[in-house]
């Protein structure tokens, strides 16, 4: 991490990290003035925002539903199946996406043709990129994320359920007035962690899904750092960009944490 000083220097292979001259905020300035700057920030935030908006409530709903059904084979089966995709690697996940959405032979297009629609080149459409990313992510992680909420639901005081039953609450009212308030602290903590990761969007999957056609929407800060830094060997500049990203993240995390502390009295520390 000490090597982050690179961001403030002009890296020179021969002189090494510590021997290279200091240049202050030059690389940061270069980045802010870069015409790509706003596109990168926009792409990163839109993708994360979409992911949180769509991906955050689903595990909660899933957990509430699983919690409603009686313990038995079906319940175990649902949990087993919904959890499974979590173990698929990013490479395999992207491979599956590509096979399913392939322009000619992909399952999605074969199905579209079958019902008489035109084929769509899903991965070549910049507008489709975010949806593909987000919904495949939900497919993969919703079951895993639901486990946390299920654990929280198991910890809700059973006397509250009895009281609700005696008062004649319907199932839905019980969910609304007992289950949900019971897991609010967990929800808040997960939300904080999610928002704190807005800028630290997983590099791996975005990078694999990228192609020249969808790059307008799919180039995010993390992939940019990789391209500029490691592929073009522009070490100092890329470090500055990466550092900028980390700092924004930290600030976001602290802000949201502070807000949550004030509003709901639960925070991550």
């Amino acid at each position, binding site marked *: *991490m*000490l*090597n*982050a000083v*690179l961001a403030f220097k002009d890296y020179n292979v021969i002189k090494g*990290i510590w021997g290279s001259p200091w240049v202050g905020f030059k690389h940061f300035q270069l980045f802010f003035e870069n015409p790509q700057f706003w596109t990168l920030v926009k792409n990163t935030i839109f993708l994360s925002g979409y992911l949180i908006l769509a991906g955050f409530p689903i595990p909660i709903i*899933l957990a509430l*539903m*699983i919690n*409603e*059904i009686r313990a038995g084979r*079906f319940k175990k*089966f*649902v*949990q*087993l*199946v*919904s*959890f*499974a*995709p979590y*173990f*698929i*690697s990013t*490479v*395999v996940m*992207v*491979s*599956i996406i*590509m*096979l399913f959405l392939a322009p000619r*032979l992909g*399952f999605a297009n074969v199905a579209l043709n079958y019902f008489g629609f035109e084929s769509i080149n899903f991965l070549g459409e910049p507008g489709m990129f975010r949806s593909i990313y987000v919904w495949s992510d939900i*497919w993969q992680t919703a*079951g895993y994320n639901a486990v*946390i909420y299920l*654990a*929280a639901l198991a910890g809700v005081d059973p006397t509250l359920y009895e009281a609700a*039953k005696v008062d004649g609450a*319907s*199932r*839905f009212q019980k969910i609304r007035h007992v289950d949900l308030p019971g897991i609010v602290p*967990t929800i808040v903590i997960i939300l904080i962690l999610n928002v*704190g990761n807005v800028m630290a969007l997983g*590099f*791996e999957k975005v990078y*694999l899904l990228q192609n020249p056609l969808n790059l307008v929407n799919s180039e995010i800060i993390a992939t940019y*750092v*990789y391209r500029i*830094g*490691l592929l073009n060997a522009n*070490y100092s500049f*890329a*470090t500055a960009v*990466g*550092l900028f*990203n*980390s700092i924004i993240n*930290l600030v976001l995390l602290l802000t949201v944490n502070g807000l949550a502390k004030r509003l709901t009295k639960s925070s*991550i520390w």
Partner: protein
Amino acid sequence: MAAIATSKRRIKESAGDRIFLGFIYVILTLLVIIVLYPLIYIISSSISSPAAVTSGRVWLWPVDLSFRGFEELFRRGEVITGYLNSIFYTTAGTLISVTLTIMIAYPLSRRSFFGRNALMMFITFTMIFSGGLIPTYMVVKGLNLIDTRWALLIPNAIWVWQVIIARSFFQTSIPEELLEASEIDGCSDLRFIWSVVLPLSKPIIAVLVLMYAVGQWNAYFDALIYLKSADLFPLQLILRSIIIQNNSGSNMDAIAMVEKQQLAELLKYSLIVVATLPVLIIYPFVQRYFVQGMLVGSVKG
């Protein structure tokens, strides 16, 4: 007596409630189908004939059962190399990671350990703030690990999250009194860890082993940036080059082209199955450990 009898009888569900519950069952069944379908589709495709796959005749069950994809797969040297490499990385990496994690987490769980809160803060800090990709790369480069097997085993050997989980486990299930008792009996600290702590910590060790093993097996990014020679590549990287970058690797002559193309398409499905199967087969047996691990972690972060 009468009061007890009525309280034992369940309060009848209203019609609305039963409809609501039915609705939940329907949705959950749909979800199971949505999750399972792609997986079944991939497996079915991988054991269908090349022609059936490319003409889109596979919908759910295999068409014209054939194992040509797998045969072709294991004729390719790079896939075998990748497989062996992945097995090596997973075994060695897990061993290193678990050992190191326990060595960090256990001392941090003891109240008498000097500076433990400061150290814990320091460790947690790395989880929320990092120098970034390039500085990490420079460190690995500075240590001369680039293009060696160590590059995949050392830099990511410890996951902070796992340390936190292990620490809270040790804290809650290995009481200080146990240590005191052993000390009175003349047991050294190392002996205590080996003969008392480890045997008592089997559940958490299981969680650590599984998490690290799956992580190593599925990792590709470190290999992508640190490795250059193809004979060190793990399976995931080979997978990427064949499926995602579409390097089927074979030079095609015009006559056999159609068939080769079909085979290349089939090969992708077989590869996915081969790369994922080890994990998915073990998974149902160890699922409860994963759940357990998450519960331990969520008790106190």
